[in-house]
C-alpha cells in the first residue's frame, strides 16, 4: 500500500483553482518532490494532505487514513515543516520541542533520548537552552526539522525547507534529509523551486497552475527533453562538420558560428571525438539536459530561480524582523 495516495484532488478559492485534479502516490521510504513556480499549488496541496485545508474535490490517504474523515490519525502520522517559520521565539529550543512532544503524546520515557538524537543530528545540541528568537534562519529551520520528526511520523512534509538559506546550510539540510532515508522508516514529501535540489529526489512531480504536468525520476524527466548537447568552436567549422559527419555519422547544426551536436552520454563522447579530430577543435562545451530544460519544455516558461528566491528571502527576512 502506498504511504501517500492522492486521487483527483481539487482546491478552489472562489473562482481560482489552486489545485486542479492532482493525483499521485508516494511509496514508503521515498523522497518525493513537488517542483513548481510560485503559486503553482504546492503549499495548498500539502495543506490538504495535512488536514489543514478541506479539499473542494477528490480524496487523499496518508498511511491508509482518509485526510478528511480521519484527521487525528493523519495528523499523528505526519510531521510538517511549513513554508514560513512556525516556532515560538520566546521559548527555548528545548521548550519548543517539549511543547510539540506533549501535543503529540510522545512517551516521556523515550523523549530525552529522541530529543538528544535529533538535536545532535541538526547540530543544535549546544543551543538547547537559548531562546529561539536568538537563532539564525538556518538554525530555526533545522530546529523545525527536528521538531517535525520528534513523534516519529510516517511521512515528513517539508514545504520549501531551504528557501532563503545560504548554500552551506542548504547542503546541511539535504544531508539530514538523505540520512533519514538511509536510516529508513520515514517517507519525505517536499516542495521546492530549486532545480538542483529536486535532483536529490527519488521521483519528482512537476506542477504548474495546479496540475501535474510530469511525474518521473529526475533521469526519466531529463530524457524527455532529449540528448546531451556538445558545442564546438573551430577555425574551420565547415571542415570540422564534414569530418565528424564522416567518422561518427553525426550531422551537426550550425549555430552562431559554432557546431552543435546532439548525442547520448556526451561526457563519454567528447574524449572519443577529441582523439579523432581534436586538432581541429578550439573549445568544447557540454550541456546536459537539466530540470530547467524539462520545465521549459513542458510549460514554455523558465522557472527563473533567482528572482523567485530573492523575493522569498525578502519575505522570510521581513517575517523574522517582525519577530
Amino acid at each position, binding site marked *: 500500500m502506498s504511504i501517500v495516495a492522492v486521487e483527483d484532488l481539487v482546491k478552489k478559492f472562489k473562482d481560482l483553482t489552486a489545485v486542479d485534479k492532482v493525483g499521485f502516490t508516494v511509496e514508503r521510504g521515498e523522497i518525493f518532490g513537488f517542483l513548481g513556480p510560485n503559486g503553482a499549488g504546492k503549499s495548498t496541496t500539502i495543506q490538504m494532505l495535512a488536514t489543514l485545508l478541506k479539499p473542494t474535490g477528490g480524496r487523499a490517504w496518508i498511511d491508509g487514513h482518509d485526510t478528511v474523515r480521519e484527521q487525528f490519525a493523519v495528523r499523528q502520522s505526519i510531521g510538517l515543516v511549513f513554508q514560513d517559520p512556525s*516556532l*515560538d521565539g520566546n*521559548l527555548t529550543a528545548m521548550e519548543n520541542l517539549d511543547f510539540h512532544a506533549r501535543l503529540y503524546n510522545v512517551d516521556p520515557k523515550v523523549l530525552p533520548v529522541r530529543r538528544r538524537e535529533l538535536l545532535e543530528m541538526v547540530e543544535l545540541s549546544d543551543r538547547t537552552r537559548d531562546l529561539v528568537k536568538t537563532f539564525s534562519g538556518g538554525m530555526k529551520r533545522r530546529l523545525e526539522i527536528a521538531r517535525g520528526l520528534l513523534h516519529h511520523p510516517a511521512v515528513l512534509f517539508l514545504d520549501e525547507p531551504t528557501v532563503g538559506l545560504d548554500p552551506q546550510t542548504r547542503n546541511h539540510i539535504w544531508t539530514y534529509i538523505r540520512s533519514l532515508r538511509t536510516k529508513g522508516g520515514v517517507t519525505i514529501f517536499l516542495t521546492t523551486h530549486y532545480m538542483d535540489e529536486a535532483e536529490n529526489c527519488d521521483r519528482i512531480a512537476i506542477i504548474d497552475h495546479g496540475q501535474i504536468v510530469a511525474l518521473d525520476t529526475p533521469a526519466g524527466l531529463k530524457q524527455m527533453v532529449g540528448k546531451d548537447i556538445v558545442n564546438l568552436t573551430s577555425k574551420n567549422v565547415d571542415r570540422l562538420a564534414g569530418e565528424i559527419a564522416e567518422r561518427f555519422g553525426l550531422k551537426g547544426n550550425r549555430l552562431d558560428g559554432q557546431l552543435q551536436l546532439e548525442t547520448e552520454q556526451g561526457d563519454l563522447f567528447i574524449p572519443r571525438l577529441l582523439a579523432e579530430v581534436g586538432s581541429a577543435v578550439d573549445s568544447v562545451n557540454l550541456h546536459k539536459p537539466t530540470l530547467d530544460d524539462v520545465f521549459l519544455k513542458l510549460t514554455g516558461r523558465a522557472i527563473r530561480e533567482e528572482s523567485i528566491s530573492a523575493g522569498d528571502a525578502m519575505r522570510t527576512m521581513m517575517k523574522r524582523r517582525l519577530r
Partner: protein
Amino acid sequence: MRNAKAIYTIWLRDLIRFSRERSRIVGLLGQPLLYLLIVGNGFASSFHLPYAPPGTSYLQFMYPGIIGMSVLFTAVFSGISIVWDREFGFLKEVLVAPVPRWTVAIGKTLGGSTVAMIQAAILLILAPFVGVHLSPQIVPAILGILFLIAFALTSFGIFVASRMQSMEGFQMIMNFLIMPLFFLSGALFPLRGLPAWMGYLMRIDPLTYGVDALRNVLFASGPLRAVFVQFPIHVDLLVVTGMALVLVGAATIGFNRQT
C-alpha cells in the same frame, strides 16, 4: 487524559512566556498603579462620592475597580495574542497537532486567566495603602472572583481574535471595546445617579459585575457596603459565571472555525 495533557501544554506555554516577559509584567502592573496614583488621588481631592459617610476616600472605592482594570487588560490581551501567534506562524504548529481545537481554546483561556489572576493578585498587596482592610479569610474568595472574571475576559479576547485578520484592527478594538468596557464597569464612578442610557450600558458590561463582586467581598461587613456595592453578591456571581460560560463557548466555536 490526552485532552487534559493538551490543555496543560497550551496553558504551560502561556505561563512560561509570561514569566519571561519582564517588561510586559512591569507595564501591566504600572498602568493600574498610575491610575491609582494619579487619577485616584486627583479625583479624591476634587470630588465627593454621593451618599458617602465622612472620612470615606475615593481611593477605597476605586481600588477594586483598578484591580478589575488590570484583569481586563491582561486577560483580553492574552486572548488576542492568538492573532500574534497567527501572524508569526506558531498557530499553525498548534492547529496541525492531533488534538481537538477546543482543548487549545480552553488551554489558552486557562493560561490567560491564570496570568491575569496573578497580576491582579499582586495588586492586593496595595490594599493597606489605600485604606482597604484585607483579612486573610477573604483572599481565597477574591482570587476565585478574579479567576472567574479573567476566564470570561480571556474567552472574550479569544473570540475577538478569531474574527481579526491581523493586528491592524487592534487600535480600533482598544478604543471602541476595551476602554468602554473599563469606563462603564463602575471602576471609576458608581452606577447610582447616572443618566439612564449609561446605566443600561453599565448593566451589560460583564466587568461591572466582576468589580461589584470584588467590592461585595472587600467591603462585606463595613458601613461602606451600602454606598459602594450595587448588586447582591449572588447576582454578581451568577452574571459573571453565566458570561464566562457564554464567552468560553463563543471562543471555542470562533477558534474552531478559523483555519
